[in-house]
């Protein structure tokens, strides 16, 4: 049996579901294929930060690398606007709180780094401003007095990672998209002016046809590229997060640190979510290929390190029981910039992934929907062109 669609989207995370919704509401006949369940992987296991200022991983390598990473700022600015509108546009109860974010400094060096960083960000149009100790006492009295300054970005915040992806999936269905879960893609090949996609179980795979294909497959991006004969280099990063028992409302901001791996925020239910990029151990086979079907393993040193930096800036955390720690695997690229655009050498195939894909998911989806429709995306995507790796 074969079936024909305008667009087949590979991957049922936040990005794939948002893209399916955006294409379907423009009238496109869309099929989304998900190997497991909607929101099962990175989209549902990240901590739900909406961070628009440069993250610690982008500034720890020095200012030149920070300037390079800042080339993604237009996507961050798009995301800041898109997230605010998504609950209304999807008519779904997506929990989005843009109550501001703070990247904090405890030393003079960190303050200087933040000052240089905010200058770069403001040149790109992000409203991120330094506040001093008095400012911190005024808007974030919950922070330790070791915090001497912070970069305050008013549009940052959080969204509920547990419910955002499924909300986009429901919006996509309501707009007429088709969704198949437990449908792993097994082969991709050019056929006429479009694509032939083999998906489903080993026993009863199905061949589907589409004019265009969108790869929204996170850690599986490189493998999908290989099926098409394209080089889409990605690096999987297994990370750890922790959630505490509920507390009365205390933290209104997303809190990050200029001198270490930390993200801190309080969920609507009162639990404190602690993360910031502490590594977990990705399981690999004998050849070193990561096994994405196996859960990465928690590292005790990460658990301790994350707790230490969190308690250092939020003393109230000491004595609050952690409910659980978990791991998820994010996808970054060799140059830390997102991968968004046409798949090189594969007409009608488009891809998006690469770092901060929860925060940037709506921006990626908007760009993909434009590319699929043959429109010029509103944002200049040249820095994110997947072909940059083929050239090198």
């Amino acid at each position, binding site marked *: 049996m074969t079936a024909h669609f305008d667009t087949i989207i590979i991957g049922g995370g936040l990005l794939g579901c948002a893209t399916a919704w955006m294409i379907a509401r423009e009238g496109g006949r869309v099929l989304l294929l998900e190997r497991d369940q909607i929101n099962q992987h990175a989209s549902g296991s990240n901590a739900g930060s909406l961070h628009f200022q440069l993250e610690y991983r982008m500034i720890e390598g020095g200012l030149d690398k920070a300037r390079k990473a800042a080339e993604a700022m237009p996507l961050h600015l798009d995301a800041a606007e898109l997230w605010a509108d998504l609950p209304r546009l999807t008519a779904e109860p997506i929990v989005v709180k843009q109550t501001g974010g703070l990247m904090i400094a405890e030393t003079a060096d960190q303050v200087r780094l933040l000052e240089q960083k905010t200058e770069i960000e403001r040149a790109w149009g992000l409203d991120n401003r330094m506040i001093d100790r008095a400012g911190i006492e005024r808007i974030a009295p919950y922070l330790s007095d070791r915090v001497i300054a912070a970069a305050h970005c008013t549009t940052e915040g959080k969204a509920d990672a547990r419910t955002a992806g499924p909300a986009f999936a429901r919006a996509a269905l309501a707009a007429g998209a088709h969704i198949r879960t437990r449908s792993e893609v097994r082969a991709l090949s050019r056929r006429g002016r479009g694509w032939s996609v083999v998906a489903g179980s080993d026993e009863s795979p199905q061949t589907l046809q589409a004019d265009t294909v969108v790869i929204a497959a996170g850690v599986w991006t490189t493998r999908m590229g290989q099926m098409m004969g394209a080089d889409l280099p990605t690096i999987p990063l297994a990370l750890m997060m922790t959630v505490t*028992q*509920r*507390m*009365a409302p205390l933290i209104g901001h997303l809190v990050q640190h200029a001198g270490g791996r930390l993200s801190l925020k309080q969920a*609507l*239910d*009162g639990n404190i979510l602690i993360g910031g990029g502490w590594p977990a151990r990705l399981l690999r086979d004998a050849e070193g290929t990561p096994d994405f079907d196996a859960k990465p393993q928690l590292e005790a040193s990460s658990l301790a390190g994350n707790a230490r930096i969190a308690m250092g800036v939020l003393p109230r955390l000491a004595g609050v*029981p952690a*409910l659980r720690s978990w791991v998820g695997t994010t996808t970054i690229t060799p140059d830390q910039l997102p991968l968004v655009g046409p798949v090189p050498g594969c007409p009608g195939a488009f891809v998006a992934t690469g770092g901060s894909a929860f925060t940037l998911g709506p921006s990626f989806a908007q760009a993909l929907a434009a590319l699929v429709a043959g429109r010029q995306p509103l944002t200049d995507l040249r820095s994110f062109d997947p072909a940059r790796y083929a050239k090198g």
Partner: protein
Amino acid sequence: MANFHRLPVARGRPVRFTFEGAPVDSFAGETLATALLAAQVGAFGHTREGNPRLPFCNMGTCFDCAVQVDGRGLVRACLTDVVEGMVVNMQEIK
């Protein structure tokens, strides 16, 4: 509302404790969750919206039965035996 009752089998010696200040009668060997359910307690805690929660998994995983015992928080009632005189309360959010 919960509607649990004890099966007619031999029980241990009587054990009395309090939940939210009210005395609860139970038997040695029962878990706190068993004793509270048999006493028709309708909520072990509440959600953010104020909806009642009762034990869900009864095997230590879901934390929906977590209560405060003798001042200690996050005690799973389904994994905790009743003890004479224990003071049990719903969890406070501090």
